[in-house]
Every structure is written in structure tokens, then in C-alpha cells.
């Protein structure tokens, strides 16, 4: 019987026969060579004078010194891509671009295909003279490919560069010109991997007629693919005498001819719900079977998502893993940092990326600001957000300086008010802002362009990135250091690439594409580590336990897709050197079959039967059906039989106690355990508390989980505390006491990043502030001139003031586009016109007196009258509360009689003529009327009386409407205020009873919104007497 691993057996025979002769073995990679050497020594015995090499490695050895002397540099695939891009750009710029590929220079995927084609043609040994235009469906395409190939080769030659194909061709030429250096040497090549024509030529030249082709375990029923070396002596089917199920895998492609199964469990199959559970199940099986982790190799059919899943799951379980193809560089800190750095530039310095660079802890600034104590990374990110930068390189300095000034001015006010500690705190924030500004300055100094549209060279982009990695990027651990060095190395190489300039945005996109596709940490199998490989480079470790993942129809053998530039029919005409799409699929099938039939020990084959993201079923590859037929003996079994055989898929819940990977899986495994049982609730205290909260909310009485803060009793009572209230806060309380509590008592606000919204410049609050300021400035100026509004006379004035304010806001908030800006400015102009026309009519009967009169508001840019102290509003003879606010407008309507108006710059939805307090949600008109009377009586008019208040909607949306509220229901207001204060006094802050109230609320995620909290409130309002004040508030019309 033959050893099932034919490769090891053949190698051993040669090593024994020519023990002391020099032996050279061509392998697909050094890693595979290393694994074969180890396996050979482990299984067969010691060997000497055997050296493994790759085709490129051998060529480099042969001609590397000469190339170096001639100053020729070897380039990698990234650089080929950049050169092709360069050539296309130059052709397009000089109108030399052919008609077929016209426009291709703007499509990155096609440039990549062209680079692949050029490389493939050269590796196939096909030069411009071998490409006949008539072989192509579109001859023009062939002509343009030939032209590109010519230009590319000339470019390499002129610029002292050589690619891999060139290196191999030069090695062949060297061999042709020289005598064999070591005629005694035994030259061998593995027969189980694909080679391109020039690679085969080189090996044949080195090996000559005595080239030894090392056989591999041949799958029965499959021909050796044409790109592989074929051994003269075939392994015959009848030579294989299987003694275990795993050896039946030789018949994977001809199960009908296979011997009967042994049923020894050396081949197992499973399916799982999603790839992550497939990976977990592998580790569960390793654990439950007590396998030695470094006797396991995991083979995957797709790197994505398996490598990342294995990396994540194994890391969380502390299982050491070696990855033959490494892990994506974006798993390391420098990799992620570089992506953010590139995206920051590519998206016009959008501040969100810089915030993430800070908050993610990606920056190490000790080298540049070592003598200064900066804020924490999170704080630095918050400063950038608070500065409201949005995007644009120039805005960083402007906005951060403005924020610094703001803190310093607050510090002055604090100090004036005798609040020294708070003043110092503001100064500290100013210093931290200055620190961030300095860091940003340093970072920006590594970047040459002002905008992504500006023209730069690739060298500038790469040099900037190298500086960033070298000076700013944090490195923690070995992997980070490796990643940073590798990135710096690649970027330095790319900096030497051809230097035609292009837009920074395009260059950055290309750099993101190149660097994000890199991986690091490629490793041979190591003691103590489970090894992970792609199946094409796997199966050489000689380990006893193999898991093959990803055997679903979509992943294996892959989709049949012709090369988009040289179609199969064209390839056929160009000769056998270029593989056809079908041949590539056949190669995949052959390689996996070869790997499976060379394994020893046991193997598990699996697939994910469900796409958990898209919620759809996935189907097994035909190879799994074959494996099922082999191990089950059911030679005609179909997919239904296979599914039945597989049983329940592996999911989130392990099926065996001993295979639970961690405590979460163990708890999930305890199927019979009641979720609410003592053991669960004792082990997970938070679950117990959650249960209690749920029960409390479900009850008919108000509980601490519904917003009843019994312990706060009295602490928030505005009648006892010295804190001033504002109308808007009280109205918020009436809308939803729970949201009020979170916002104003706990002080929690959603983070608001300034993000680019193509359709909006100012948000409603910003627009409102702008318009209020314009109205105030305009009316103040008219009053100072003692003029009444006149449309013809004053439309220019109000527009001028308006545009001045618009310009101020433009500096603070960058418009996303001129179009959006123009549209909003036009809307502002219309609003100003509506305002003016309305004022012309109104001022014929009333006299405008005060504008933006504020009281109890300590700072801010104020354009109107200012009273520093809040107004004391008496509720009755014994009680009063303090009110702060800003009254938009007070008009005199008669002797000692006044009207108070509030500008509303949005629509009038929710406001109506009838009614007075609107369930406590419209208090402002009534409270401002009282506050006005108090203020005027103290200062200007002892007999002042406010007879009417109202809301004025001057925007196009509000149609210039005025809603009037007669001020004759003070008793009702005071009774309602009593209910408000009772809520404060008793600490009752339940969610709203109004379903529509949750629509625009920021806190729905906290309370559950109308489906949860509102339902509870509605029920409890009926049942619990504590809710009486809220019930009464609801009744105020």
C-alpha cells in the first residue's frame, strides 16, 4: 500500500537515495517548503542538503546582485498598478488614449484589471508580437493592450525598474548564457501547484532533463490541471488501499467507485448557522475532543470572513493562532490610524475622522508635545466636536481659536462673579483647546494639499503618511510595531513610484485601496498555536486534525467568471499559456481534492447553512455531498439525504456541556434552566435588577423605574431652591417629565457632531437665532432713528443686516454647497420681507418698545435690553419662584398697556388661537406677560399692564401668522404652576402620556417610547394617585 501522502514519500525517497548530494526543491512558497521539511523530518527521518526555493526567490538569487549593480529596483504588484494608472493618465492627457479603453482611467477596477492583464501576459511569456488583433472579438482592444504592454515595458526599462516577470525572464536569459553552475545538484519541483509559463521554463532550465517531479496524492477521477507539472509515473487507483474513512477522500470526485466506508469517524461533516457559529463549533470540537491545539490545522475556502472571525473568536478565548496569510493590517492600531488619516484628507478634513483618531487612542504625541500636559484622548475628541469644525482644513484654526476665546471669556465672567474655581476650570479648557490646536497644526504640517481637489503627487501623499506613522501613530505591542514598519516600508517604496500629479482625492483613494488590502503577521505553524491557512496553501503542516470551513455553494469552488479583458474565446486563440475561467475552477476543485486526499488523522468538513445578516438559506457545495456519499456508503444520496444526515446545525447554543467555550455558552447550554431562576439572577445581578424594573413598570403603580424619585423629594423644588427656571424648561416638563429629568436633571444630551448634510446649512435653532438677531438689530435701529417701518424705505436695511448675520454664521457653520446656501439665504430673505410687511401694518397702531429683553441670563451675545437678575414671580402671598428668559418683543398698545410677542421662525404646527395653557405646554406667553409687568413696573412704567401676548410666525412656512393670547386667566396659570411644582416637590418624572410626543424625542432609546413607557404612563395615570398633578396638567386646555 502506498503512503497516502505521496509528496512526503517521494521526497523521502530522493533524500535517502541522494543523501549527501545538493538538492533543490521548487515550492510555491517558503512557508510551504518549511512545513514540508518539518513534516519530512517528523515522519520519515533526518535529511540534509535539501534546500527549498521559490521561482522568484531563485531568480532573485541568480540575478539580484547584477540588478543591484545596475541600479534596477524590483517592484511589486502595487507599483505595477500605479504605473499602469500613470501611463493611462499620460495617454489621456496627451490625447493618445485609444477608443476602446477611453474613460477607463477613471474606473479603478478596470485599471486593476489592466494591471493584472499586463502581469498575466508577461508571466505567460506573451509579448506584444504574440498578440494578434484578429484573435480578439474587438481587434481595437488587442491593439490597445499591445500598446499598453509596449509602453509599460519601455517605462520599466527607462526608469530602472523590473517586475517579477522581468526578473524571471532575466534569470532565464542568464541561464541560457552561462554553463550550469552545479551539474551535480538534484533539482525537484512539487507537482501540486499552478505555475505560469515562464516559471515552468525557468524550472525546466534549472533542472534540465533530470528534473525530478515530486508526485502528490492524486484524487481519483480528476486530471491534473494543465498549469501543474505532471509526473511521468502516475499513482494508480488500485495502488490505494484505504484503511480509514479519511483515505476514502481520494474518491471524492468518483464516489461510485470508492471502497465501502469504515465508519471510524475520521471524516465528519457539520453545518452551522452563520460563519461565526461555524468557527465556534470548530473550537468547541477541539475542546470537547481534548485535541492538542498545535496538532490542528484549519483550512478556509475564503479568507474573508473566516480569518477575521477566527482571529476575533480565538482572541476572545485566548487560543494562540498562526495565520499563514497573516491578518489584515486594519486589525492593528497603525493600520486603522492610517485609514482614518487618509479618509480625513480624502473627505475634505471632515472632523469626525480626526475625532476618531483621538478618541480611539491612535495618536502618540509625546514626541512632539512632550513638555505639555494635554487632555485625555476622549476629551481632545470632545474639544474638536465642540469647536463645530465640520470640515475644511482652514476651519480648524478658526474654530479652535474661537472656542478658546469663548472659554477665556467665560472665565472672565466667572471671575467677575467671584467664581474663581470655575474661572480656573474655564481657563484649563481654553489651554486644552490650545493644545489640540497645536496638535492639529503638527498633523496638518504633514499634508500638502488644502482640499481634496488640489493637485498633488503620490510622493507627497506617501511622504506625509510616513511622517504620520513615524511621528504621531501610537504603537502598542509587537503586532503594531510590525504593522507600522511594514506600512512605512511600502509607503516609502510607493513614494518612488512615477510622479504624475493628480487630485489629492484620487491619490488618497488609491492609497486607501492599496494599504487596506495589506496583511501582516504571516506565520509558519508554531508550537502551541493552531494554524490557519487558505486551502490553496494549506494541508502541508502534517497535523493530525484538520477542519475545512466554508464549503457552501457560494464560496466553493467559486463563481465562474471570465477575465473581463481577455475573454475565454480570445485566450483560447492566444494559446495554452493563459488559463480559461473554467480551468481556474477546475484547479480549485483539484487543489481541495488533493489536499483532502493527502491528509492523515481526521478531518471535519463544514459550511454555513444560513446567512444571518441577509436572513437567507445557504446550500452545500457538491464536494460535501460527495463526502457524505463516501462516508455513508449511500452512493446515490442526494442533497436532502445530506441535510438529514447533518441534522441540526451548530448554533449559538452548544449541544454538549464539555464543548462550551466560555461561561456565556455554558449558560446558554443550560436549556432547562429558568431565566428567572435564583442561580441565573444570583450570577447576573443586573438581570435580577432588570427583572425587578420590568415588574415595577408592568405594575399599576408608579415606581422608581417609571421616573419616581422618592429620594429627591424636595431637592428639586424651585420654590425652595434658588435656581431660576425658564419657560422652555417648564414646557418641556409638561411635554414629558421623564425626558426633562434626563436632559435637565441628569444633564445628559445627545452628542451633536457637525456632519455634512448636502441638503441643509443651518439647523432650525441656528436659523432661529440668526433671524431673532436680525429682527432685534433692525427694530433697534429704527427705534433709535425714531422711524416707523416702511417697506420701500427699509427693505434694503433689513436685508443688509440680514446678510451681515448670514456672513457671520457662514464662518461658524460651513455650508455643504453653494446651492444649499443660496436656497437657505433666499428663504431668510423671504422671512425678512414677511416680517417687514407685517411690521409696517402693525406699527401703524402700536409702538414697538423693547427687543430681546433678557433677564437672569448671565452671558452670550445679546443685542437687546439686559437685566442680570431673574424675575421673582409670586405665586401667592407666601411663595414665589425665579424665572429667567428672553422676551423677543414688547409693544406699547395704549396708556400703560402692552403686548408681549414671541417670534417663531418655523411653522405654526401645534399653536392655535383657542385655549390658554395647552396642557402646560404653552406657558411662555402667560409667564412673560407677568415678568414684563414686573420689570416695567420696576423701571419704566409703574402701571404697566400686559393685555395680550402671542406668537408671530414670520417665515414662509408660518405665513406671517399671529396667534394672540388674551392675558385674563392668571388664576388658572397659578393653579397650573402649583401642579408643576408638585411634580418637582414629589420627584415625579414619568414618561409622557402623549403618543405623538415621542416622535422627535432624543431619549426614546432610554424609555422605550410609545410602545413601552407611554403605555405604562397612561395606565398608571388612571390607577395611581401620585400621578394626580400630571393628570391635572393634562386637563388645562
Amino acid at each position: 500500500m502506498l503512503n497516502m501522502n505521496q509528496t512526503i514519500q517521494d521526497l523521502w525517497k530522493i533524500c535517502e537515495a541522494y543523501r549527501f548530494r545538493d538538492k533543490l526543491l521548487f515550492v510555491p512558497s517558503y512557508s510551504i517548503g518549511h512545513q514540508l521539511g518539518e513534516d519530512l523530518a517528523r515522519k520519515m527521518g533526518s535529511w540534509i542538503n535539501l534546500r527549498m526555493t521559490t521561482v522568484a526567490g531563485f531568480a532573485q538569487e541568480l540575478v539580484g546582485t547584477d540588478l543591484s549593480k545596475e541600479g534596477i529596483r524590483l517592484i511589486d504588484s502595487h507599483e505595477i498598478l500605479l504605473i499602469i494608472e500613470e501611463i493611462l493618465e499620460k495617454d489621456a492627457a496627451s490625447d493618445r488614449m485609444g477608443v476602446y479603453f477611453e474613460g477607463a482611467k477613471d474606473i479603478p477596477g478596470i485599471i486593476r484589471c489592466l494591471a493584472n492583464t499586463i502581469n498575466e501576459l508577461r508571466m505567460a511569456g506573451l509579448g506584444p508580437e504574440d498578440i494578434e488583433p484578429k484573435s480578439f472579438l474587438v481587434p481595437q482592444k488587442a491593439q490597445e493592450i499591445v500598446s499598453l504592454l509596449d509602453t509599460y515595458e519601455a517605462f520599466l526599462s527607462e526608469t530602472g525598474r523590473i517586475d517579477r516577470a522581468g526578473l524571471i525572464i532575466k534569470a532565464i536569459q542568464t541561464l541560457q548564457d552561462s554553463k550550469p553552475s552545479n551539474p551535480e545538484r538534484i533539482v525537484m519541483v512539487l507537482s501540486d501547484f499552478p505555475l505560469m509559463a515562464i516559471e515552468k521554463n525557468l524550472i525546466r532550465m534549472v533542472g534540465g532533463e533530470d528534473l525530478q517531479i515530486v508526485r502528490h496524492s492524486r484524487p481519483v477521477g480528476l486530471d491534473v490541471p494543465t498549469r501543474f507539472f505532471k509526473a511521468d509515473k502516475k499513482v494508480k487507483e488500485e495502488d490505494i488501499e484505504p484503511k480509514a474513512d479519511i483515505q476514502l477522500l481520494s474518491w471524492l470526485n468518483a464516489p461510485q467507485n470508492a471502497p465501502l466506508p469504515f465508519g471510524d469517524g475520521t471524516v465528519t461533516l457539520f453545518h452551522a448557522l452563520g460563519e461565526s457559529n461555524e468557527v465556534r463549533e470548530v473550537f468547541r470540537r477541539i475542546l470537547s475532543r481534548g485535541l492538542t491545539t498545535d496538532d490542528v490545522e484549519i483550512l478556509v475556502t475564503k479568507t474573508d470572513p473566516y480569518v477575521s472571525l477566527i482571529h476575533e473568536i480565538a482572541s476572545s478565548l485566548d487560543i494562540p493562532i498562526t495565520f499563514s496569510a497573516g491578518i489584515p493590517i486594519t486589525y492593528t492600531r497603525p493600520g486603522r490610524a492610517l485609514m482614518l488619516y487618509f479618509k480625513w484628507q480624502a473627505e475634505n478634513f471632515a472632523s469626525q475622522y480626526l475625532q476618531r483618531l483621538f478618541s480611539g487612542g491612535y495618536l502618540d504625541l509625546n514626541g512632539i508635545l512632550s513638555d505639555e500636559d494635554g487632555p485625555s484622548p476622549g476629551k481632545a475628541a470632545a474639544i474638536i466636536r465642540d469647536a463645530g469644525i465640520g470640515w475644511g482644513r482652514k476651519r480648524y484654526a478658526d474654530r479652535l481659536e474661537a472656542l478658546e476665546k469663548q472659554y477665556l471669556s467665560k472665565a472672565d465672567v466667572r471671575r467677575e462673579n467671584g467664581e474663581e474655581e470655575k474661572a480656573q476650570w474655564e481657563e484649563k479648557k481654553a489651554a486644552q483647546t490650545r493644545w489640540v490646536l497645536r496638535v492639529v497644526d503638527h498633523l496638518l504640517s504633514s499634508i500638502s494639499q488644502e482640499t481634496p481637489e488640489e493637485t498633488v503627487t503620490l510622493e507627497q501623499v506617501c511622504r506625509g503618511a510616513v511622517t504620520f506613522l513615524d511621528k504621531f501613530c501610537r504603537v502598542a505591542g509587537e503586532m503594531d510595531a510590525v504593522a507600522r514598519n511594514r506600512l512605512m516600508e511600502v509607503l516609502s517604496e510607493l513614494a518612488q513610484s512615477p510622479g504624475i500629479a493628480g487630485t489629492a482625492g484620487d491619490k488618497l483613494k488609491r492609497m486607501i485601496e492599496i494599504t487596506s488590502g495589506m496583511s501582516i503577521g504571516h506565520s509558519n505553524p508554531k508550537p502551541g498555536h493552531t494554524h490557519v491557512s487558505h486551502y490553496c496553501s494549506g494541508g502541508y503542516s502534517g497535523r493530525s486534525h484538520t477542519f475545512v470551513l466554508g464549503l457552501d455553494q457560494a464560496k466553493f469552488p467559486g463563481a465562474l467568471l471570465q477575465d473581463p479583458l481577455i475573454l475565454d474565446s480570445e485566450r483560447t486563440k492566444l494559446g495554452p499559456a493563459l488559463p480559461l475561467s473554467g480551468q481556474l475552477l477546475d484547479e480549485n476543485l483539484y487543489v481541495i481534492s488533493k489536499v483532502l486526499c493527502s491528509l492523515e488523522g481526521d478531518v471535519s468538513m463544514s459550511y454555513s447553512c444560513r446567512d444571518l445578516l441577509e436572513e437567507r438559506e445557504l446550500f452545500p457545495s457538491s464536494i460535501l455531498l460527495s463526502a457524505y456519499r463516501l462516508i455513508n456508503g449511500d452512493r446515490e444520496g442526494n442533497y436532502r439525504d445530506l441535510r438529514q444526515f447533518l441534522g441540526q446545525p451548530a448554533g449559538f447554543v452548544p449541544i454538549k456541556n464539555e464543548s462550551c467555550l466560555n461561561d456565556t455558552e455554558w449558560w446558554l447550554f443550560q436549556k432547562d434552566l429558568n431565566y428567572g431562576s435564583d442561580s441565573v439572577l444570583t450570577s447576573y445581578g443586573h438581570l435580577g435588577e432588570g427583572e425587578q424594573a420590568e415588574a415595577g413598570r408592568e405594575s399599576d403603580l408608579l415606581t422608581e423605574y417609571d421616573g419616581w424619585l422618592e429620594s429627591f423629594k424636595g431637592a428639586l423644588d424651585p420654590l425652595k431652591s434658588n435656581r431660576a427656571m425658564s419657560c422652555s424648561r417648564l414646557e418641556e416638563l409638561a411635554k414629558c417629565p421623564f425626558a426633562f429629568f434626563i436632559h435637565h436633571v441628569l444633564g445628559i444630551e445627545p452628542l451633536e457632531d457637525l456632519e455634512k448634510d448636502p441638503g441643509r446649512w443651518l439647523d432650525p435653532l441656528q436659523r432661529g437665532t440668526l433671524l431673532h438677531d436680525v429682527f432685534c438689530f433692525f427694530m433697534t435701529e429704527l427705534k433709535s432713528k425714531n422711524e416707523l417701518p416702511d417697506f420701500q424705505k427699509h427693505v434694503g436695511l433689513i436685508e443688509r443686516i440680514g446678510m451681515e448675520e448670514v456672513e457671520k454664521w457662514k464662518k461658524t457653520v460651513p455650508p455643504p454647497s453653494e446651492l444649499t446656501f443660496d436656497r437657505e439665504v433666499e428663504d431668510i430673505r423671504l422671512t425678512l420681507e414677511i416680517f417687514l410687511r407685517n411690521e409696517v401694518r402693525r406699527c401703524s397702531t402700536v409702538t414697538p418698545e423693547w427687543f430681546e429683553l433678557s433677564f437672569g441670563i448671565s452671558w452670550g451675545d445679546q443685542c437687546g435690553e439686559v437685566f442680570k437678575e431673574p424675575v421673582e414671580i409670586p405665586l401667592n402671598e407666601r411663595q414665589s419662584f425665579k424665572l429667567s428668559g428672553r422676551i423677543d418683543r414688547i409693544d406699547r398698545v395704549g396708556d400703560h398697556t402692552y403686548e408681549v410677542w414671541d417670534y417663531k421662525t418655523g411653522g405654526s404646527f401645534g399653536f392655535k388661537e383657542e385655549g390658554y395653557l395647552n396642557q402646560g405646554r404653552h406657558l411662555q406667553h402667560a409667564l412673560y406677560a407677568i415678568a414684563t409687568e414686573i420689570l416695567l413696573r420696576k423701571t419704566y412704567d409703574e402701571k404697566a399692564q400686559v393685555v395680550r401676548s402671542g406668537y408671530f410666525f414670520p417665515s414662509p412656512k408660518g405665513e406671517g401668522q399671529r396667534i394672540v393670547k388674551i392675558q385674563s386667566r392668571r388664576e388658572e396659570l397659578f393653579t397650573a404652576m402649583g401642579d408643576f411644582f408638585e411634580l418637582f416637590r414629589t420627584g415625579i418624572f414619568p414618561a409622557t402620556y402623549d403618543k405623538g410626543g415621542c416622535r422627535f424625542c432624543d431619549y426614546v432609546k432610554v424609555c422605550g417610547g410609545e410602545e413601552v413607557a407611554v403605555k405604562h404612563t397612561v395606565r398608571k395615570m388612571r390607577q395611581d394617585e401620585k400621578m394626580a398633578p400630571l393628570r391635572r396638567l393634562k386637563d388645562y386646555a
Partner: protein
Amino acid sequence: MPKPNDQTYRDMIVQELDASMLVEAGAGSGKTTSLVDRMLALIGAGKCTVDKMAAVTFTRKAAAELKGRFQIALEDIFRQETDEEKKARYQTALSELNLLFTGTIHSFCARLLRERPVEARIDPDFEELEEEENAILRDQCWAEYTEGLVC
């Protein structure tokens, strides 16, 4: 078992191999079976090879199931076939089964575009847009377009 009353049409599906055909029938009436039979007939008659065949379905699930059923049916017919010429054709089809296209109309079109990106002026690495992404992109495009009109 009595023959179904539409047997004539069922026969046409596997016999009229040079004619294009539209088959409309209710669920469970055997459309997929007829389709598989027609595919087998085309191969057996030497009218078509699997690499020149496309079976387009409405859902991905149907496509995967169809592929599985076709494989099993092909294996069955290969075992039972006595005509040497036909048997050889079935054997070739089995060995080239990976070259058969079965998929949805979306995947069929995507494949055409990926194989002819230059003619289609499209990046072969394109991804289909999700609905939400589509809405965002539409807004962006509209903003850019209208801006272009003004400038």
C-alpha cells in the same frame, strides 16, 4: 398512474429543443422538473453543453435547489443511459458541472456586467446598493446635479 391532461405540453418541453418556450403553470405542477428534464434533453441530444447553459430563477434559493436537482438528475440519467454517445455527453456534463450557470436574474446581469466592464463603462468591483444607501446617494446626486445647473 393516469397521464396528466397536459402531457402533450410536457412532452413538448423535452422534445421541442430548438424552439423557445414560455411555460406558465401553477405551483407544484412540476415546472422545475420539466426545466431539469429539458436541460438534460438538451445535453443528451448534443444541442448544448453545460458551459453554454443558463438557468435563471426568481430567488437564490430556487437557483441553489435547481442546481442540486440538476446534478442528481444528471447522475441518475448517466447511470441509466445505455446509448454510448449520450452517456459520454452526460459524463462530460458531470465533469463540467461547475461551468453551469444557475442564479437569479440579478446575478446573471451582474455577471454580464463584470465580464464586460469596459463596454458597460462600469467598475467590475461594483456592489449592488442597499435601499438606504440608494436613498442617500440619490439625494447627493440630486444636490450635485442641481448645483451643476446653477454654476
